[in-house]
């Protein structure tokens, strides 16, 4: 545990890595200054983009003793303000799931190539990043734990499947490779409580290790202090649960 007489330092900067199809994408990498070794975490950003909030989340993980990286899933869509780029991606229906998986795999490879990485790496995301986390936790070998924060469209009707999103993440449950934490708002429309219950039932049926928490009085995005969705008590408890979960499975 950190005490006020200890040294603490951090390096946080943009880097590049090889993502899907060997494409070079940029990413934000924050790490403690020290020999470590440290566990890692890949943060998958939300629909509003690779933005300041995700830089803060990434540094928060570094502050807590992780090598943390947030890949820019929108790298290929051009550069500008995070919002302008995200608007462009929104207009095109989002990024393909297969491309996202490749970029997250590349991010995992980046962390495990670090001499001061323990080799234990978690993956987490909020909103569309939560959905992406469920996919990556099922498709990618090498993660140790995963956290889905209010990811919508884990449960998807057949009619909503398309070329970019060909398989509903809930249908990947039998392939889930790691323990899964889920944090949800009880007032969220998507994922709605029935959809969360459906996901939980699938995890139980498949014998998977999971831990789900639904917060009353909170909706979608309740960690976002810059939005009306922010709920102080639920957000702080959520962060505590997230760090406790990763500490249990990754060590820190």
């Amino acid at each position: 545990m950190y005490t006020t007489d200890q040294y603490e330092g951090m390096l946080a900067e943009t880097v590049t890595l090889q993502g899907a199809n060997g494409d070079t994408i940029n990413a934000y990498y924050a790490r403690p200054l020290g020999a470590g070794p440290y566990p890692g975490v890949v943060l998958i950003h939300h629909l509003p983009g690779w933005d300041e909030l995700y830089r803060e989340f990434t540094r928060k993980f570094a502050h807590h003793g992780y090598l943390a990286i947030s890949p820019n899933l929108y790298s290929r869509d051009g550069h500008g303000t995070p919002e302008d780029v995200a608007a462009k991606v929104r207009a095109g229906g989002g990024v393909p799931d297969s491309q996202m998986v490749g970029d997250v795999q590349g991010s995992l490879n980046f962390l495990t190539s670090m001499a001061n990485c323990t080799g234990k790496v978690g993956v987490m995301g909020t909103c569309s990043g939560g959905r992406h986390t469920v996919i990556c936790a099922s498709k990618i070998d090498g993660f140790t734990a995963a956290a889905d924060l209010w990811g919508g469209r884990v449960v998807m009707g057949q009619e909503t499947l398309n070329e970019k999103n060909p398989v509903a993440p809930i249908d990947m449950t039998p392939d889930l490779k790691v323990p899964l934490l889920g944090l949800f708002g009880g007032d969220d429309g998507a994922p709605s409580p029935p959809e969360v219950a459906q996901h939980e039932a699938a995890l139980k049926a498949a014998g998977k290790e999971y831990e789900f928490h639904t917060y009353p009085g909170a909706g979608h995005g309740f960690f976002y202090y810059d939005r009306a969705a922010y709920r102080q008590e639920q957000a702080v408890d959520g962060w505590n649960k997230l760090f406790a979960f990763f500490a249990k499975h990754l060590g820190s």
Partner: protein
Amino acid sequence: MCTMIVHNAKIDGMGKGIEGWFDLKEANVSYDHPFHVRLEHALNIDFVNEAEGPGARVAVELTPESARELAKTILATLEEADAGGWVEPTDPAKINKTVPWTVKS
């Protein structure tokens, strides 16, 4: 949640962004998370020129009620213009471009 509800329209005209007027080529209309208006979902319209990069964008975020009112108002305006004989088919090549006023007084 991310609804991923979006429809795209090809358009012709001009829009005023933060760096001034530019040619508009597309309007991307979504019902999804907005960036600024304090709603979980909004009717978002991005008037853009994709060929000029993500920064060539004029954005609005509306409540669904406002968006419906706007759509009605647009159609009512065009109906009146049609009735008055004002509307002719537009040749996009002939849209005059605004010449910016550069003389500083």
